């Protein structure tokens, strides 16, 4: 479980996140939704520790990522997997090397075991045949799937996805959504997905946090999303119809 307590973030004089508190449950696909520029990405970067909030805590099962020692922070990061908006594959490595990378860096397994694990992850995302290709030879959807395979290589407890469907066609988007949802339930991990794609919200969202202008305006289950009285959320949902 990941808990946010009173997160605040400023960039110079502008307050981007206003006292955000929320809880993301284990074994569920938690979505952060909102318009572009609402602060979703800044919030996600605060959660994964790429930005430090000016105030507040980000607790990973009780461990505050921003107050851990360097060693404990590194250990916590090995429990995290991240799917970036642009996949962020290492373009000097082929697909298999990309998936092997976190294993090579942190796993104590033998080379044969690491290779087997990387191939298993690639098989899990349906890309066994692409292991020798370079990232530039792959389509956007395939790159995202490789990034998912890399993210799950170390069997993470927490998975983060920043706009996983951006730049993808609807069919590829649904494949990525389904993979994220399946992996979340299969391994019982805490998943947070940053999105403004309403098809994803309807398809895989279980718990939703709605951000508007840096404020956490609404939180609840997907089932109650469409009955919300919040005017900004209603406007956001109606814009899709």
């Amino acid at each position, binding site marked *: 479980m990941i808990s946010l307590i009173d997160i605040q973030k400023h960039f110079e004089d502008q307050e981007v996140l206003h006292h955000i508190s929320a809880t993301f449950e284990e074994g569920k696909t938690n979505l952060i939704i909102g318009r572009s520029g609402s602060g979703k990405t800044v919030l996600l970067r605060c959660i994964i520790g*790429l930005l430090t909030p000016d105030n507040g805590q980000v607790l990973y099962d009780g461990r505050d990522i921003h107050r851990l020692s360097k060693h404990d922070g590194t250990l*916590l990061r090995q429990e995290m997997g991240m799917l*970036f908006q642009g996949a962020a594959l290492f373009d000097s490595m082929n697909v298999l090397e990309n998936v092997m990378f976190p294993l090579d860096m942190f796993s104590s397994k033998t080379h044969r075991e690491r290779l087997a694990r990387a191939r298993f992850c690639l098989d899990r995302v349906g890309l066994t045949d692409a292991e020798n290709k370079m990232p530039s030879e792959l389509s956007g959807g395939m790159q995202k799937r490789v990034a998912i395979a890399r993210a799950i290589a170390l069997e993470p407890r927490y998975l983060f996805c920043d706009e996983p469907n951006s730049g993808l066609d609807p069919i590829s988007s649904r494949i990525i959504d389904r993979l994220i949802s399946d992996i979340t339930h299969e391994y019982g991990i805490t998943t947070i997905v940053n999105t403004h794609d309403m098809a994803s919200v309807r398809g895989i969202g279980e718990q939703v946090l709605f951000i508007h202008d840096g404020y956490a305006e609404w939180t609840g289950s997907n089932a109650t999303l469409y009955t919300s009285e919040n005017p900004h959320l209603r406007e956001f949902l109606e814009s899709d119809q």
Partner: protein
Amino acid sequence: MLRRLLHSIGSYLLLMRRTFARPQQMRIFRQQYLHELYSLGYNSLFIVILMSFFIGALLCVQIKLNVWSPWMPRFTIGYAMREVILLEFASSIICIILAGKVGSNIASEIGTMRVTQQIDALDVMGVNSASYILLPKILAMVTAIPLLVTFSIASGFIGAYVVCWAGGFLSLADLTYGLQHDYVPWHLWSGYIKSLVFAFIIASVSGFFGYTVRGGSIEVGRAGTNSVVVSSVLILFFDLMLTNLLMG
């Protein structure tokens, strides 16, 4: 302006502190180091040899045509050329050329990694991205540059021999005598010492500009240009300082 300069120096020093950390995985570090040695060092060998060859030849011709006069001994042509090559050209000028070739390459490569979130991906995994990316490049440059300087000196002398032989400017015996005349080994060593400092400047400053890129492709291009300009100015500044320290 001053505040921005101090901020940049502070950021650079903090980045260097992160860079000079023990590699998290020695096996991967060794692979990276060898790869950078090939990519930054070996791939620069041809341009260094080519330029040094022609500069050595040109120096010989210029000294003969414009500096030398009949009352000067003939060997002064070889002597003057040797001193120019050893003291400045092979270390400082070659490093300025490499700041353009290698420095812009480092800045744009790391800058592209930054804007495509590859550095963020390393950080999220718990990899010390500064050490992982920059340390092999800096060490590879510091290893490769003295070797390149050696090739530069040799190529410069070969260029001089070829032009003397082909153009008949000077007898090979006079050139050889000039190259050996009043040789001070410290001049060679001071060139090597300077080149080590310049290698560090090229790799670390270019790495800093790439690592701190914010934005997109325009900023990556700008980082490449800035890294070349700043590295070149710093090389000249430290050249002046080190020449005073080592030769004064």
